[in-house]
């Protein structure tokens, strides 16, 4: 076998040095510190590489509302379900959306009862579908500003008449303010997602830092990116410095991707709305502007959510603590349903549905966040 070249950002020796730096910083601080990241991809890397077992004991790294599928609110899912059940309507959406519970039914339930639902990998596929199909194709669009730009691009490109968008797109910067202001929060700093910042630019966080007096560090997604980002963030906390630091300069600039921003704001306007389990987030939802009204599914169809309001949520859903998990108040293992009643095949809460959800990620990578160093048996000797 040809030896695979070691990936540049996956050097365990460098990781251990960064972990040691974190230890030293935490000793200097001398108390517990909690920080939050807001991205499923950050959590995936942390869980997959077992990074939590490297973090100092007094440093807590929580995942915040970083999963767009998880924060899609129940009424938004209901809108998708009701549209799917209308005659001659085909829904195109990302696979992760299928099992997200609505008030009564998920899209997967609607599909089982005969609704036409197509899984797509990108918005262009939804447009292709509309060109091939006679009926109405509604793209149920979810995701943060990263994927919203892709939705904007196809709308600017003048899609066919039978195509429309049900936007459940969300915008990250405002929700960071909500989480920072939560009365129970212990969060002292944020690790911002590198890919979203590649669009918005890191400058977008400067106002946040001013208003909330909390440092923000933009970080990438390889294990070393995350560790280096945390070293920077904890350093800022130790020094009481409130500013934005970009540790992902190979992708992120201060201004960001200006053409992408132009497209994003030409098509979308921010409005207030609920994020599942979190709160009403001012300017947190992205809706189509009037110029694009003819492709707005909300204006094109009558969607009467009241038909679903007679139903009480199921018993188990009341025990689900997804909201507290996304707000960084609890971890999945604090939930009595986690890995028992609530598993990926039969999710109770949205965090167990999406590959970006905290509970799903923890489940995938063994269910226990930090194994510690333990009494490891003597490691394998090199036999070659």
């Amino acid at each position, binding site marked *: 076998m040809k030896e695979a070249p070691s990936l540049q950002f996956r050097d365990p020796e460098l990781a251990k040095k960064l972990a040691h730096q974190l230890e030293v910083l935490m000793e200097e601080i001398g108390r517990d510190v909690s920080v939050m990241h807001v991205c499923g991809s950050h959590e995936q890397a942390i869980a997959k590489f077992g990074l939590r077992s490297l973090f100092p004991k007094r440093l807590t790294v929580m995942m915040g509302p970083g999963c767009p599928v998880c924060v899609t609110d129940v009424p938004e899912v209901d809108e998708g379900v009701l549209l799917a059940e209308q005659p001659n309507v085909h829904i195109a959406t990302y696979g992760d959306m299928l099992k997200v519970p609505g008030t009564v039914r998920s899209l997967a339930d609607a599909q089982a009862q005969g609704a036409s639902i197509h899984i797509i990998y990108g918005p262009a596929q939804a447009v292709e579908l509309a060109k091939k199909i006679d009926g109405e194709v509604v793209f149920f669009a979810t995701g943060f500003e990263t994927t919203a730009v892709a939705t904007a691009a196809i709308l600017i490109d003048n899609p066919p008449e039978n195509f429309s968008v049900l936007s459940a797109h969300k915008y990250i910067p405002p929700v960071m303010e909500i989480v920072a202001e939560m009365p129970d929060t212990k969060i002292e700093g944020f690790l911002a997602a590198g890919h979203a910042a590649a669009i918005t630019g890191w400058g977008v966080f400067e106002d946040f830092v001013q208003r909330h007096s909390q440092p923000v560090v933009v970080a990438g997604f390889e294990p070393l990116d995350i560790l280096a980002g945390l070293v920077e963030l904890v350093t800022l906390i130790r020094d009481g410095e409130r500013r934005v630091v970009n540790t992902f300069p190979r992708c992120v600039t201060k201004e960001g991707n200006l053409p992408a921003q132009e497209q994003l704001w030409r098509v979308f306007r921010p409005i207030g709305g609920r994020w599942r389990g979190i709160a009403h987030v001012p300017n947190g939802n992205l809706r189509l502007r009037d110029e694009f009204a003819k492709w707005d599914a909300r204006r094109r169809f009558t969607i009467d959510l009241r038909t679903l309001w007679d139903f009480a949520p199921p018993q188990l859903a009341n025990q689900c603590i997804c909201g507290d998990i996304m707000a960084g108040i609890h971890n999945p293992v604090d939930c009595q349903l986690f890995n028992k009643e609530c598993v990926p*095949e039969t999710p109770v809460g949205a965090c167990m549905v999406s590959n970006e959800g905290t509970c799903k990620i923890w489940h*995938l990578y*063994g269910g226990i966040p930090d194994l510690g160093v333990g009494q*490891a*048996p003597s490691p394998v000797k090199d036999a070659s």
Partner: protein
Amino acid sequence: MSGRVLLKQGGGGRAMRRLIEDIFIRDYAAMPFDGIGPAAMDDGACIPFGNEWLVITTDSHVVHPIFFPGGDIGRISISGTVNDLAMMGATRILGLTCAVILEEGFPIEDLERIQRSMVATCREAGAVVITGDTKVMGRGEVDGIVINTTGIGLTKRPIRDNGLQLGDRIIVTGTIGDHGLAVMSIRHSLGLESDLSSDVAPLNGLVAATLEAAPEGITAMKDPTRGGLASALHEMAAKSNVGILLEERRVPVTQAARAAGEILGIDPLHVANEGKAVMGVRAEDADRVLEILRSHPRGRDAAIVGTVTNERPGSIILDTGFGRRLLAEPDGEPLPRIC
């Protein structure tokens, strides 16, 4: 149990084991049988035969697509059964049976190609098909072709999958994840261009050489097919009531498989291998076994990848090189990441 059979109950993981235990094994396990039988849920059954053991195993083969890079359904159906016998220590194959179920309309040309492949694989394994059965079903009643093979072999000492002892080393006989990722990368027509190729091959020669060199050194053995190395290790750990510390960076994975896994969002540890074995080996024999394996053409990339521990019995502790976490047991077929 209630409801209907789910696809994931055939995925080789926990769900499948539960289905087999709940529906099939209970009754058969209660019937008198003098040997290693269904209750063991091992790769095959063993019947005492003079001072040796007769080993029997059976396997039905379906694969989509039926021809894939590195192999085809014919090569799998011979290799799979030969390997199940070899995993029990029966490397001398007395005979194979072959039953084929065909769908109306199946191209004869394809059937001949599959047959040629089965014959070639038999020659490689030193095995012969000695009886068989053929059925043709109507269009849509079966999907193309299903091949069942049963194998009979002999061994002096059956090797079980529950024999791991504290301190044993875990050895894999080569690169992990090739078959599953090769098939998946073409199955989901993601247009991946790569040199991924299935590892499907009979392993009885490799296993025979190892057993000859260290007759008592191999404490447990299994072929990591459906569910991959993760599933095989979980089964061995649970049945042996031990934990396994797996060092991820020592697990040999080709560059092509690693890249495909990253793109598809699928862990090579979770997908099928069709030409690899995972062994528990006594620590003092580990270096010698590794040497024997590496000198054999089917074992060139063999590696020591882990150690048996008393920490967390039934679990696999994965040392990623960065930190440690538990390796999840696959619960159904992995699907490529959606977004």
